[in-house]
């Protein structure tokens, strides 16, 4: 029986272009934020697992600036039982290693769980590394790129999308599953949910509260360092307008 499902979500800038400060950290102030697309699927998957298991609890964990708590609060209306925000200026500029370390510290404070769900990657930094790092740190098995999942016995059945096909896998709980974009569309909040959400607060944790030292946090705790950032117009080319005979010629060339 599933008792607790953890979901890690990230709020990402809605804008397609972004600004960085002098230390190559993202300027996250002033831009509007939305739930990362793959995380939407992870959250909905968690809510469906909960619906199928009466006593299960969904705990949402996010890391980010304090102001994201406003948006995160709305997740109570969808059926989240607890929403936790790990937020600390010290965590700014963390690479995937330092981010995983911080999330693991927070996860350890939350107690046992049956399943940890994440989006397969965030659309801002697009590393997709956090799920693997979390699984290794927590010592649990993982399947990434999941496109369908259901609970079964003491684990989960899932479908994993790979380059050359789809794998049907069975994984033992507790485990980590990272979910693809558009796997499950997020439900809308109901009237009951909205009412229930009204007096619930996002629980905010600081780095110290989860037992992280200053050396482990943010830029200082990172194993990689951005040394240069170039902006560029992606792939601008000079277009030659032509007729189909030129295209046919080009296609033949490539076929050779």
């Amino acid at each position, binding site marked *: 029986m599933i008792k607790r499902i953890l979901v890690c979500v990230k709020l990402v800038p809605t804008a397609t272009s972004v600004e960085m400060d002098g230390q190559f950290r993202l300027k996250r102030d002033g831009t509007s934020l939305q739930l990362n697309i793959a995380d939407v699927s992870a959250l909905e998957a968690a809510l469906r697992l909960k619906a199928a298991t009466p006593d299960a609890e969904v705990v949402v964990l996010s890391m980010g600036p304090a102001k994201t708590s406003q948006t995160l609060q709305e997740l109570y209306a969808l059926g989240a039982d607890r929403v936790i925000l790990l937020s600390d200026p010290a965590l700014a500029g963390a690479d995937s290693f330092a981010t995983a370390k911080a999330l693991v510290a927070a996860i350890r404070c939350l107690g046992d769980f049956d399943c940890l769900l994440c989006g397969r990657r965030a*659309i801002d930094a697009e590393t997709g590394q956090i799920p693997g790092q979390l699984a290794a740190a927590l010592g649990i098995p993982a399947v990434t790129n999941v496109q369908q999942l259901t609970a079964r016995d003491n684990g989960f059945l899932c479908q994993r*999308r790979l380059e050359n*096909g789809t794998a049907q896998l069975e994984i033992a709980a507790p485990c980590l599953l990272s979910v693809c974009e558009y796997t499950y569309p997020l439900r809308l909040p109901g009237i009951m949910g909205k009412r229930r959400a009204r007096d619930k607060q996002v629980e905010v944790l600081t780095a110290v509260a989860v037992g992280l030292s200053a050396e482990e946090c943010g830029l200082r705790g990172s194993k*990689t360092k951005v040394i*240069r950032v170039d902006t560029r117009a*992606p*792939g601008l080319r000079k*277009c030659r307008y032509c007729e189909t005979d030129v295209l046919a010629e080009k*296609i033949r060339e490539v076929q050779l």
Partner: protein
Amino acid sequence: MKQELLLIQGTLPDMGLQSKAAQLALKGHLTLRVISGANLEAATADDGAIAKALIPQAQNARVILAPATTRLRAILPMLAWYLQAGLTADCTHLDISPDGTLLQTRPAFGNSLIATIETVSGIQMATVRPGTFPVSEGAEQIPVETLQEKPAQRVKLLEFVPLADSVPLGEAKIIVAGGAGIGSSAGFLKLADFAGRIGGVVGASRNAVDAGYVPYSAQVGMTGITVCPKLYIAVGISGAVQHLAGMSGSTTVIAINSDPKAPIFQYADYGIVGDWESIIDQLMEELS
């Protein structure tokens, strides 16, 4: 002193990356080692077990590289955690200094930024976008070791269904991608017929996927797959930045669109303005 450059290959080895690894090893005064095996991607479904089996192999590594396939993008972060090493995802350019410092370059934010990254841990790890580097002569001659790993119990493979397309989108030399402008599933069948005749594979924009013309597995772009074929033919695709993020690395881009102002033309080498169906018909005729 750690002095190896370890390349981890999966079942779909990236020979271009193998060539690049050989050059980097030479320039950075490192010894090249390549580990591979069918095991790595096929037999064991448990990425964690593979990551664990790789730990002892990494003892002398200064640099660890792997193609950024779905499985290796799961395995490398686990290995990086075990080794407490920095890892950079999906690099599109690599360089090394004579003292073995690896410079890793990768796009971010839908290709609007290009970041160059250094690792501050002793072991420097990176996954590399498949197909980024050209294959040079001699890459096949590099000896490859096979990884021995124990079967794992925690993740079991029940079934594997290969993609109907014989060539995965990410490896296709020619991609014919359709957008909302194709207008129907029937239109995509026609596009698939055309793609098949020229030895290509069908890709799609998100709007075409959202409209239900094609499955999500065909989606190219920021929230789909990233491709860099020799030839990318964008048919009825407007050229949104999120779509460009997935295909701007293509060698040659052809755009077919009825709107002469469609942004895709600014990102194409060749363009035809007009109705896609009649243009494809004409092309099929010329190629037959």
